[in-house]
């Protein structure tokens, strides 16, 4: 049984603001029956068309999806559109006293519907959201085909919630949670986002002696990289370290895996982040 907070249970059992607003100013609808959850958010504005006077929802989904929708409507009532746009999925989860990590996608769905409602109300292009098959033409490459999630959407969620593993991305967005085919691509996106973050705030990297660097590389591989590969039935072996060049050989499920190129990139990014930015990872037969 899920460990829901009392506040989640309370909002699930007594959801606020259920229903539609026939003359709503803004409506945001995300998700679908196939996805297993969906939210339709209705927003009514005051005469200045700037402040939210009423917000209601209709939700198909689990207990935490209904609770998150209820929380969202409570949170945005009285806010200006700009203030509402600044609401993050983490704030929705916090309002409820937290959500189990596996259920964080419920809070993301709330934020998605809110953003969609406001941006389309303002006449802007629909944001690159998940669930884009509902909203017609949208920018971006579809990464997760099962749930129809684009790279732009995933990057945003990874960035905002500082996600580090593909498992977290699945918990927050569902991406990779069905067939799992896009997990290598999700790992690439994480590496790319993390890379940008590191580039934006250059980490002060101490000058390492060769011996210390080799030690660190081994530690990162043992503690950070291999456990993740094991989780997917794979493994790697450190073959050689020659200056910044780190040679690895893939084992088990990783050996001969068509996405081992992605995995090598992931290893490289980890080592660059945690050891030294000049590291180059090479895959060798071994």
């Amino acid at each position, binding site marked *: 049984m899920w460990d829901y907070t009392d506040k989640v249970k309370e909002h699930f*059992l007594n959801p606020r603001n259920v229903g539609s607003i026939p003359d709503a100013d803004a409506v945001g609808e995300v998700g679908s*029956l196939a996805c*297993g959850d*969906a939210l339709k958010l209705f927003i009514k504005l005051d005469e200045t068309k700037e402040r939210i006077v009423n917000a209601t929802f209709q*939700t198909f989904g*689990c*207990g935490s*999806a*209904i609770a998150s929708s209820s929380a969202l409507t409570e949170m945005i009532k009285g806010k200006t559109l700009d203030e509402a746009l600044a609401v993050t999925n983490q704030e929705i989860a916090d309002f409820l006293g937290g959500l189990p990590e596996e*259920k964080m996608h419920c809070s993301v769905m709330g934020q998605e519907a809110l953003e969609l409602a406001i941006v389309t109300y303002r006449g802007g292009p629909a944001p690159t959201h998940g669930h884009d098959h509902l909203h017609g033409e949208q920018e971006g490459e579809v990464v997760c085909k099962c749930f129809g999630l684009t790279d732009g959407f995933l990057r945003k969620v990874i960035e905002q919630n500082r996600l580090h593993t593909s498992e977290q991305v699945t918990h927050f967005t569902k991406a990779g949670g069905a067939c799992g085919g896009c997990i290598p691509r999700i790992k690439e996106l994480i590496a790319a986002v993390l890379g940008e973050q590191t580039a934006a705030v250059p980490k002060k990297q101490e000058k390492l002696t060769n011996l210390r660097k080799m030690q660190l590389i081994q530690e990162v591989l043992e503690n950070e990289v291999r456990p993740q590969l094991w989780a997917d039935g794979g493994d790697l072996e450190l073959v050689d370290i020659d200056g910044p060049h780190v040679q690895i050989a893939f084992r088990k499920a990783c050996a001969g895996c068509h996405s081992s190129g992605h995995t090598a990139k992931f290893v490289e990014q980890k080592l660059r982040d945690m050891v030294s930015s000049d590291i180059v990872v090479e895959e060798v037969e071994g």
Partner: protein
Amino acid sequence: MKEIYLDNNATTRVDDAVFEEMCPYLREFYGNPSSMHFFGGQVQKKVDEARDRVAALIGADPSEIIFTACGTESDNTAIRSALEVFPERRHIITTRVEHPAVLTVCRGLTMKGRRVTELGVDGAGRLDLEELKKALDDDTAIVSVMWANNETGVVFPIEEIGAIVKERGALFHTDAVQAVGKIPLNMASSTVDMLSLSGHKLHAPKGIGILYLRKGTPFRPFLVGGHQERSRRAGTENTAAIIALGKACQVAGDWMADENTRVLGMRDRLEKELLTRIPHARINGGAAERLPNTLSIAFEFVEGEAILLLLSEKGICASSGSACTSGSLEPSHVLRAMGVPFTCAHGSIRFSLSRFTTDAEIDAVIRELPPIINRLREISPFGRELL
């Protein structure tokens, strides 16, 4: 709040008679049955009696019963053993609707160079035996097909399948965890080589199972070490649980007729009343032969976890084929294999009854569930034009 427990395919209450039978073997008679002294010997006698009782329920010879720790261990043992005794055969046949205790083992073996065929099912959850015939070849080491499905209760024609399997010389294993005690089985006249059974599904405690191994079937043990279970399963016997399982099998035999009359009647009444009172509902596997205690019912436009949480508020314990319950994101692999539309796969609920279920409990579900579905449909953005 007194619970209304309708989740007996997940686990069952330990029968009072079973509990009474096992207790002395936790406290006073704690001897090791392998010991030479009288103190262990008296436990050995009781373990033998339990073996006889289990064998009697499934029409087997006591020497064909191997006690294990659970149904999962029995399943793992059977499949791995078959591959070891037939090293030249590299093919396994199973079904898309098996329990993970079988399916995960098989899928894992594909990584080790084994070929695995997963037979599909039709919309009612039934196998196509022609597909089995086509898949079987001289490379097939083992066919593992469950006797009855845990989610839908659909019963497979095990003896027909076994006859086909035997023609090609492969071993035939069945996970009968959900069938034992609910429908009569008779190994004496069966085509089954190996069968898994789990104690806690038939009112014995958790942590005890058996693997039935037909006399003469080639076998390699999964656990090796001591000579227990005639060297077919090493490890000191879980004596109290074995004795409990023996008693549970004896009691299950006594209640078999009740299961197929009174329990079946309650299940059918629940099914009929829910279909009458709740529009846009359908039975998963309704057109197939099913276990007498299982009802899998799908409600369109609502999600299963939300239904379970609201039922739970009323003290009613059921389970769901929905994704959100398990933490996975897709509806159950069984419902997907059956092609249950997404519109209702997420809203599927399983009620599983037992001999302890009462008419009053069924009445409570018939009373409480329709308003719960209504309430969630009022919140849902879907289907309002139809309701």
